[in-house]
């Protein structure tokens, strides 16, 4: 395949959006208040829409009649290359918002810098997605502050979420030959610049929220090369159910 590195990167980028979108959609009808039910499903819709644009481009590179639905619905678990962070279960609202915040704080500078990509379509996807991501980050950061600097109960839950999720954050900056070759060719931004911006956002918000960032350096990874936590299979069972039960079905 021509452009194999870009294809593999698009799966990593798109799978993060798709799986987090699927996780957020699980809140539909279960939100703590109606407005948040609507907010989480709105954000889910944006993420799934972004995944669709990303997979459209991947399908174009792949050729052979591939399309965004085949990429999203018909791979096996080890072929998904999302980070472990996005597949973590929703647990409570604090956990969901902290997970979202860690992710949004990464996606905003990523898309900002990716707008300068030498690859025109990737730059267009970044430009489009950035506008939506700003609203997501605004929403998740405000909730992290509200809960962290809120009651004893909300603070403890938010702090527990930070303690549990922090070990998954580093995988967002995973680089192997795929990313390295794209960075070298000016298709992806330099990751240290993304990480610096991410760190500033995280520290500023956690500080305002009176939450402590864990100092333990232990981190988890594996998702980027298709090694997932036990949660992934359950997500796919639900995500892929219709296509597996009724192959090629259309709405």
């Amino acid at each position, binding site marked *: 395949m021509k452009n194999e590195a870009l294809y593999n990167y698009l799966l990593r980028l798109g799978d993060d959006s798709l799986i987090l979108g699927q996780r957020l959609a699980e809140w539909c009808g279960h939100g703590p208040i109606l*407005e*948040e039910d*609507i*907010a989480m499903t*709105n*954000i889910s*819709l*944006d*993420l*799934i*829409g*972004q995944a*669709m*644009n990303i997979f459209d481009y991947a399908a174009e590179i792949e050729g052979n009649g591939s399309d965004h639905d085949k990429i999203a619905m018909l791979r096996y678990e080890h072929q998904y290359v999302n980070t472990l962070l996005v597949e973590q279960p929703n647990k409570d609202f604090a956990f969901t918002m902290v997970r979202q915040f860690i992710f949004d704080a990464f996606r*905003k500078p990523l898309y900002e810098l990716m707008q300068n990509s030498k690859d*025109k*379509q990737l*730059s*267009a*996807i970044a*430009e*489009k*997605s*950035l*506008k*939506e991501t*700003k*609203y997501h*980050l*605004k*929403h998740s*950061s405000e909730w992290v502050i509200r809960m962290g600097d809120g009651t004893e109960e909300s603070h403890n839950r938010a702090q527990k979420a930070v303690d549990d999720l922090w070990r998954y954050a580093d995988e967002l900056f995973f680089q192997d030959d795929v990313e390295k070759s794209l960075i070298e060719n000016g298709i992806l931004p330099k990751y240290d610049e993304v990480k610096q911006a991410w760190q500033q*956002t995280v520290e*500023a*918000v956690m500080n*305002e929220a009176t939450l402590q960032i864990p100092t333990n350096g232990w981190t988890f990874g594996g998702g980027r090369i298709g090694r997932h936590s036990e949660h992934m299979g359950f997500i796919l069972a639900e995500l892929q159910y219709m296509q597996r039960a009724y192959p090629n079905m259309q709405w």
Partner: protein
Amino acid sequence: MVTREAILGWLEEVSDPEIPVLSVVDLGVVRDALQVGEQWIIVITPTYSGCPAMKVMEQSIREKLTEKGLPSVEIQTILSPAWTTDWLSENGKIKLREYGIAPPENEVDKSVLFSEPTVVPCPQCGSRNTGMVSQFGSTACKASYQCNDCKEPYDYFKCLK
């Protein structure tokens, strides 16, 4: 002889399925109509990446142009330049307010973190004593607000730049 202007004029009769007072032209979703040889290409751009109304708009554009004698137009979706509420026509903003949806305020691109919600006047009574209920509303493009004077809840077509 079909002209670009005629096509764009016809598309003003195609409405957004979620906000029927707006046409796809008012909304800024239709970017252009181009002729390549005998083929007309209608260039559109999504408002939000996951907007479910896009498919319906595409279908409605085809139906309208078929009705006008152009059955085989090609519809091309582009992502860049990315859609912005700046493209909403002035006429569109007036129609939105009359329909009960507050049109986008001309917000400067303020910082994402630690910023206060935008003040959006009530489309019913004009009061500026209003409050944001949620940044996310009934569709991707709207936020929920409530007027503290007339007490009416309303949608705000949120600014996207």
